[in-house]
């Protein structure tokens, strides 16, 4: 019993000694920090997503105080945060264009053909290294959900082996864009366009059709039927030009495979 008391007491005394020493050192060696950094940190989302190019929200705040970055650098926070930052920094905010992530593949597990049995590491990155694992399409979603794990906002759900993005939660930080080994996720402006080509296959029609029921087969019907010249073909893949699109929806009607889709509630964003 006595030993326990001696042991506890001596360690406590040692710890107390160092605690006092450190607290004295802390007050003596305190670094003066710009008080605006703390206020900026409160205004920033604080998820350290690094979409701005800095390692953390704190690094961005420190750079912002020095005037090295513009107030709208936080893409995640959008206009609200830009406004708060501009109020703290005393400068006028620019309007930040809201971008959201969009998955350019529409084929769930049941709709894409398999070419092999994949038993390797269950990440998209690993599967992509071995010729795309079991997915026959060389462009489409692999379905292991690397993007879901990378998303700091839980905006991505894997439904039937395909990434679905909840636009109400997506902030456009671009983490998923970086981790997707097939580059099928893109950041796009969502204020002006409701119709998207939900495919990224660059294969010719026959091959694209063989590996997936929902792929763009480059038939060109959308190009011919679009009254506003907004659709065009690029490398066997239909594209929609947001500057010309009038959101009439004819392209989605004529598409034989359903690769062109209307996005839910995208207009509200």
């Amino acid at each position, binding site marked *: 019993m006595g*030993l326990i008391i*001696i*042991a506890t007491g*001596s*360690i406590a005394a*040692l*710890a107390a000694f*160092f605690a006092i*020493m*450190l607290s004295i*050192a*802390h007050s003596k*060696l*305190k*670094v003066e920090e710009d008080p605006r950094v703390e206020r900026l940190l409160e205004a920033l989302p604080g998820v350290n997503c690094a979409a701005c190019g800095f390692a953390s929200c704190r690094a961005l705040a420190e750079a912002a105080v020095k005037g090295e970055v513009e107030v709208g650098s936080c893409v995640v926070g959008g206009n609200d945060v830009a406004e708060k930052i501009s109020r703290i920094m005393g400068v006028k905010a620019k309007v930040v264009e809201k971008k959201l992530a969009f998955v350019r593949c529409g084929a769930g597990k049941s709709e894409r053909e398999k070419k092999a049995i994949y038993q390797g590491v269950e990440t998209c990155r690993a599967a992509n290294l071995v010729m795309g694992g079991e997915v026959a399409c060389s462009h489409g979603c692999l379905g292991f959900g690397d993007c879901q794990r990378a998303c700091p906002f839980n905006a991505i759900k894997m439904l039937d082996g395909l990434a679905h993005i909840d636009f109400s939660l997506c902030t456009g930080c671009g983490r998923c864009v970086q981790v997707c080994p097939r580059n099928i996720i893109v950041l796009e402006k969502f204020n002006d366009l409701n119709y998207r080509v939900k495919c990224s296959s660059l294969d010719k029609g026959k091959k694209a059709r063989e590996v997936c029921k929902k792929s763009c087969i480059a038939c060109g019907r959308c190009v011919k039927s679009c009254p506003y010249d907004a659709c065009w073909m690029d490398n066997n893949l239909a594209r929609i030009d947001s500057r010309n699109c009038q959101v009439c929806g004819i392209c989605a009607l004529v598409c034989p495979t359903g690769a062109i889709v209307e996005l839910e509630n995208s207009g509200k964003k």
Partner: protein
Amino acid sequence: MAGRLILIFLGAVLVNNFVLRYFLGICPFLGVTGKVESGVAMGFATTFVMTITAAVVWPVNMYIIQGLNLPFLEYVSDILIIASLVQLIEMFIKKTNPALYRSLGIYLPLITTNCSILFLALFIPLREYTFIDSIIFGFGAGMGFTFVLLLMSAIREELDFAEVPRSLRGAPVTLITAGLLALAFMGFTGLI
């Protein structure tokens, strides 16, 4: 007396160099040796922590661990001492040299987990050094660490401009360099 101290110092710097002889502190050895400036700064920071650690560990070991017969507290007290001292030097560098603080980055708090310092703290009671001996030993070990980091970072700065075969670029050639350095340091074995 003086001769003995010089021997301890030289022994720690050259013959029993912590990095190249005992393979301790490899993490900063490979991590911060990209530039001479940060390598040397890391070396001096570690030297500072090592010297003070030696100075604190000796009385703690003498009067608390052995004096009160509490050998099981050795690791706990050593870790407490090292962690506190690293905190202290972190504050000091942040105050005096913010640029250096940023360039050392995560490796500065990682001095806490630098095995060479714990090794030093555990080694001192084993060797039955006196107080002065252990301070010199700690300082020598730190200077040896700094010396090796300086050598390594200078070599690596030159390596950036050297024509290295493609398959060896980056980590492989760094590890080969470290191995050759360790081989060269074996030449000091017969010095004392």
